[in-house]
């Protein structure tokens, strides 16, 4: 990756944001009728029982709120242009969220073309947090592998393999802890295979990763027809129950989204904290990062490069395997092509998040929201195609690696086999 002068391409993002803001103000703001209203509701659909607080519906004038949101995005763009902050990427993320909110206001306006005259914010957030959770597992797997210098492009394969075996175990035992363990073991096995071929046999990591994905998707699709179809009780599609955290789950909006989740969700949050701490605050993390940046130097101070890489890739595989189980535990029955490219979105989230756990979370939330909206917008009969929202994570990632939006720098030895000289 070449170093990017901040003045040059850094300003591209500022212009992009200003254009986005203008679009919001003109199309979504002045494009809606003066008397149009948008209604946001907050009542959770999945919790019954009493809640101490109740959030009323938020009714706003579509035109003026979208004009304000557009102006906010423009302001962010102007600020990026003038001050050229280092965190331009974060400002772009903020602008993207404003954009999505404005889009929702506009899509659900009434009188308008929409059949559903309101947006249930709580269900939008819970729906997208389910996707974000899977992306977090995947991008954390990428962080573990790539920080040690091994490219894990096989996240998708570990997802789909984990989901398959998770489904079989969950169907036979109805125990999602066992399913998660099974998925972890299987993902770790795939991670070991990747590490084995990449480290011992110096195979090309990107090629091995791509081929592992096709192997896993064809193998699971084969097993689905050959084993799961004749024995449907191996794939009954039971989903995991949520574990509401007492009291906290009663908080409006935040409660149902963050504190009435599955164990997998809490595990993802916990893993982010653990990996983040271990990577940047412990001796182990320092060693891992040394191996990923400059393996020769690491070796010269007595770090075993190969062992570090093996360990990390196996751990990364296990994390992605659990991610596959988490996907299956929230979506139900296994099908061929089950994860439909989510592993590559996780790779995108890893890159957008600059190879850090916390960045991966932000990217996963943003990409999860856009992936959910790409599906969810169809019920609002929006004149803009949901396909363009679906493109968003991929386009942003391309812009990021091209240095158009901020800068990212991968670990220096990422993807390069290490040979002792």
């Amino acid at each position, binding site marked *: 990756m070449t170093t990017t002068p901040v003045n040059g391409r850094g300003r591209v993002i500022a212009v992009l944001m200003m254009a986005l803001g203008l679009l919001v103000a003109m199309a979504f703001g002045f494009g809606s009728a003066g008397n149009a209203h948008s209604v946001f509701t907050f009542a959770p659909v999945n919790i019954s029982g009493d809640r101490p607080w109740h959030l009323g519906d938020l009714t706003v004038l579509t035109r003026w709120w979208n004009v304000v949101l557009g102006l906010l995005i423009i302001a962010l763009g102007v600020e990026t242009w003038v001050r050229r902050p280092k965190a331009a990427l974060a400002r772009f993320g903020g602008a993207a969220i404003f954009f999505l909110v404005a889009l929702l206001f506009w899509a659900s306006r009434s009188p308008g073309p929409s059949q559903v005259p309101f947006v249930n914010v709580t269900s939008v957030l819970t729906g997208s947090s389910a996707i974000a959770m899977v992306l977090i597992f995947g991008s954390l797997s990428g962080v573990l592998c790539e920080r040690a210098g091994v490219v894990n492009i096989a996240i998708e394969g570990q997802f789909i393999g984990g989901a398959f075996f998770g489904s079989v175990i969950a169907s036979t035992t109805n125990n999602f802890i066992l399913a998660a363990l099974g998925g972890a073991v299987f993902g770790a096995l795939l991670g070991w295979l990747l590490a084995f071929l990449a480290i011992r046999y*110096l195979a090309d990591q990107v090629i091995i990763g791509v081929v592992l994905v096709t192997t896993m998707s064809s193998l699971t699709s084969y097993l689905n027809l050959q084993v799961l179809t004749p024995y449907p009780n191996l794939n009954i599609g039971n989903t995991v129950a949520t574990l509401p955290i007492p009291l906290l789950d009663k908080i409006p909006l935040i409660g149902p989204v963050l504190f009435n989740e599955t164990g997998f969700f809490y595990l993802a949050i916990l893993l982010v904290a653990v990996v983040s701490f271990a990577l940047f605050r412990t001796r182990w993390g320092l060693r891992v990062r040394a191996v990923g940046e400059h393996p020769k130097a690491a070796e010269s101070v007595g770090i075993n490069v190969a062992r570090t890489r093996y360990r990390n890739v196996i751990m990364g595989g296990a994390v992605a395997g659990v991610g596959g189980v988490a996907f299956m535990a929230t979506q139900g029955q296994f099908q061929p092509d089950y994860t439909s490219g989510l592993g590559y979105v996780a790779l995108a989230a890893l890159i957008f998040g600059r190879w850090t756990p916390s960045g991966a979370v932000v990217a996963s939330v943003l990409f999860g929201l856009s992936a959910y909206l790409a599906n969810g917008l169809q019920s609002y009969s929006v004149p803009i195609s949901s396909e363009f929202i679906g493109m968003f994570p991929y386009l942003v990632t391309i812009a990021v690696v091209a240095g158009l939006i901020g800068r990212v720098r991968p670990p220096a030895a990422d993807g390069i086999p290490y040979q002792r000289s």
Partner: protein
Amino acid sequence: MNRTSLRRIGESPSLLTFFALLLGFLIGAVVIIATTAPVLNAWRQLFSSPTAVLHALNVTFDNVGAAYRALFVGSIGNPSSFAHSLATGQSWTATLTPLSETLTYATPLVIASMGVALAFQTGIFNIGANGQAILGGIGGAWIGSMMHAPMIIHLPLTLLAGVAGGVLGGLIPGILKSFAGAHEVIVTLMLNYVIAFFLVYVVQSTPLQQPGQANDISRTLDHSALLLPLFGAGSGLRVSYGVFVAAGVVAFGWWFLNRSTLGFAFRVTGANPNAARAAGFNPKRIIILVFMISGGLAGLAGVVQLASTNYFIDGGFLIGSAGIGFTAITVSLLGRNKPAGIVWGSLLFAALGVGGRTMQARTGIPLDLALIIQSIVVLFVASPVLVKEIFRLRAKAQTVQLATKGWSQ
């Protein structure tokens, strides 16, 4: 950094490929054994009688043999029906259908693989053949269905539109790599998804959507834009004039790599970029050019697929050309990025895909087994040192031969 391409793996590449194929089919057999109920039952009764072992072996060979025989018969043909047709001069259609189907599937595959191989030879990994083929299909569908002209003008223009679509798809990663240093693997991988979404959008919108349809389906190509069946529409054989396009592409690829100045510059860049720069080749220009050619070939593959097999774009085309894009990568690895190797590799993988259908119909073993075998073969081809160890071949000192560079390069 060592940027040697995958060209020179091992001392005897064809031997290694043969062993990789052997391992692929062996593992495929293991998968069949482990998942087929009659075979498993036979082994479960291993200790029931003294001859149970023989019985179990018998059942195993029967099942695996039946599957692999169906693969062969479905993709190449049945020897006895060949004999019958030769003797009586009748039912040639039925006899030749398997071969015709294999050639039909191999045609776009050869073209796309040639594109991927050219990139590999230059040290570039183009995972985006997939998306470029889709763009080629969109371009071809546009000209092929919206324009009306006699075939002599219409067909070449349709094919050119496909090439143009692919070139466009290749230009994006090419420009981003040479001017912004964006890694081509990430960009092409992400572009595949962007383009797949774009395809869905295009076939749902005017003007390309079939008028009067609410489904995701495009207009049908004019008859004058089609690559017609080679033996006439009445022959019942689908193999089309596209094979000549594929043959032309192979000839072009051979000439380009071995005889042209630009091809030489590509290969030097792939082997040693510093030497290429010292020799006065402009690396930025070469990266953009290789992506244009590689993408153009992938686009041509997409439009050939459209004009010879699909005739319109729908969900099946998306899956079909997605198959082309990813299979092309595996084919060019298998064929070691050489024109002749690519022809054989494409025929083999097309045969596996076509024969897989017959296998599924006759023995109930899912078609996906063919894809598993393909993937495993390529996994071994990509790890030559492992194959050497398994077969106790004399291993030279381990050398790194990479097709791709680390993210930060």
